[in-house]
C-alpha cells in the first residue's frame, strides 16, 4: 500500500512544488489549503505523515492546529514535518528548539524553500522512526 501524506498549506504554488517532489518519489499526497479542512481530513482518513505550514490565514494558525493534533489521542503519534518560512521567528518563540520544535510528539522542521533531496530525506527519516515505534509497541 502507498504511503499516504497529508499536506496543509495555504499557498497553492508552494504546495504544487512540494507535491510534485513527493509524488515523483511515489508517495500519495492529499492537500488541504486551510487548517479547518486539514483537521477534518485527518479525522476521516489515516495518514502516515503530515506536512504542516505555520503561517496560515490570520497568523500562526498552524501552531493552533498542532496543539489540537497533540491533544487528539488518534493523531498525537502521527509524525509531523513543519515547513515554514519563519525559522527565525520560530527560533525566537521557542529558543533552543529550532531543529525539533516539539509542537507535537514527533516533529521536525524545515525552512521554505526546501531542496528536493533534503525534503525526501526528512520525510523518509520521520516515516522510518514512526515505523520503528510502531513495531516496538507491537512487541
Amino acid at each position, binding site marked *: 500500500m502507498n504511503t499516504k501524506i497529508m499536506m496543509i498549506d495555504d*499557498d497553492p*504554488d*508552494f504546495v*504544487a*512544488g*512540494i507535491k*510534485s*517532489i513527493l509524488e*515523483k518519489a511515489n508517495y500519495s499526497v492529499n492537500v488541504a489549503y486551510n487548517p479547518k479542512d486539514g483537521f477534518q481530513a485527518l479525522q476521516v482518513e489515516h495518514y502516515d505523515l503530515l506536512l504542516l505550514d505555520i*503561517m496560515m490565514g490570520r497568523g500562526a494558525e498552524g501552531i493552533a492546529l498542532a496543539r489540537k493534533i497533540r491533544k487528539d489521542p488518534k493523531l498525537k503519534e502521527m509524525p509531523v514535518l513543519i515547513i515554514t*518560512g*519563519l525559522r*527565525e*521567528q520560530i527560533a525566537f518563540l521557542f529558543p533552543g528548539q529550532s531543529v525539533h520544535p516539539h509542537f507535537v510528539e514527533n516533529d521536525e522542521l524545515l525552512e*521554505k*524553500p*526546501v*531542496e*528536493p533531496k533534503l525534503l525526501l530525506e526528512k520525510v523518509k527519516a520521520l516515516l522510518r522512526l514512526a515505523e520503528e515505534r510502531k513495531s516496538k509497541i507491537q512487541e
Partner: protein
Amino acid sequence: MNQRSKLLIIDDEEIVLDSCTQILAGDDIQIVTASNGTLGLQLIKEIMPDLVFVDLKMPGISGLEVLEGIHDFDPNMVAIVITGYATVSSAVEAMKKGAYDFLPKPFTPDELRLIARRGLEKRRLTLEAITLRKEKEMLREQFAAIVSHELKAPLGAVQQNLFVLVDELSNQLTEEQKGRFERMKTSISDLINLILTWLRVLSVDVNKIQETFHPTSIASAVSKAVEIVQPHATRKDIEIIPSIEEPLKFVNGDEGTLVETLVNLLNNAVKYSRSGSQVLLKAEEGETDILISVTDSGIGISKEDLPYIFNDFYTGKSDQAVEKGSGIGLAITRRIVEAHHGVISVESEPGKGSTFMIRLPALKVPEHA
C-alpha cells in the same frame, strides 16, 4: 483631553487646599485634596492624577518623600512643589528629584492657574508621546509581518518550483539552460536574504545587539568588509585602498553588524564611483574614539538630499543616472552605529565625491594588550 483632568493637592494648611480648589475649579478639572503626605501617596495610587501639587514642608512624611513616591509609582506623572520663599534651595532639590516646576508662596490666583495649565499641558504631551511611541512600535511589527508573509512567501514558492523543475528536467536540460536556472535560483535567494535583512532591522530592536557586546577589533572588521565588497569593486574596476593605523584600540561592539555597516558604506562608495577610480577606507585613533572614514571620488550627494540620507527608504530626489538603492542601507548603518554609541556623518560635494565618517568610542586597552 476629552477626559476630565485629575488634579491632586497635598498640603497641611487647610486654607491653601481650599483656596487652590476654588481658584482651579472648573468643568474640565477634578480636584482632590490631601492634608498630609501619607494620605497623598495613597490617593495618588487610587485616582492616578494627571497633576500633583505638593507642599514641601509638612508634618509627617515630607514633600520630597512624596515626590520620590510619585516617581516610583509613575515617572510620567507631573508634580509641582509648593514652597515658601525661604526654601528655594529645597525647591531646587525637588526639581532634581523629578518635580516639573515649583510655585513659591505666596502666589496669586493667576500664577497658580498658569502653572497648573502648564503642568497639565506637559502631562498631555507626555501621554501623547507615549501613545505615539506605542503606535510606531506596532506599525513596525505589523510591517514586519506583512513583509515576511506577502513578499517572502511568494518568492519562496517560486524558488521551490525552480528547485523542482531543475530536478525533474535534469535529463533534458542543456548545460547552458542549467546555468540559467542556477542564476535564477541565486537571484531569488539574494532577494530573500535582502528581505530578511530588512526584517531584522525593522522588526527587531537593533539595540538588542548590545546584549552581546564584547571587545571587538576594528582592524578585523575592516578587512572582512573589504573582502566582501572586493568582487563588486573588481567588476567596476575600482580600487579599494584600506589604511589602518596600528595598533588600534578595540571598541565594545558586535563584529557582525559592524562589518555590515562597513560593507554598506563601501558598497555605496563603489556603486556611486566612476570606473577606474579609488575608494579610500581609513581607520585611525582619536583621543577617545576610533574614526573610520570611507571616501570616494564619485558623483557625490546634492545639498538638498544630504540631510535625509540616513532616513528609512530615502533614495534621493535628484535623478542621477546611477543604480538605484533600496534606500535602507544607510538607515540600517546609522542604527547600528548608534547602537554602538557612535556617530555617523557625511560630507559631500556633487561631482567630486563623498566622505562618510563613523566615530565609535574606543576601549581603553590597546589592541595588542
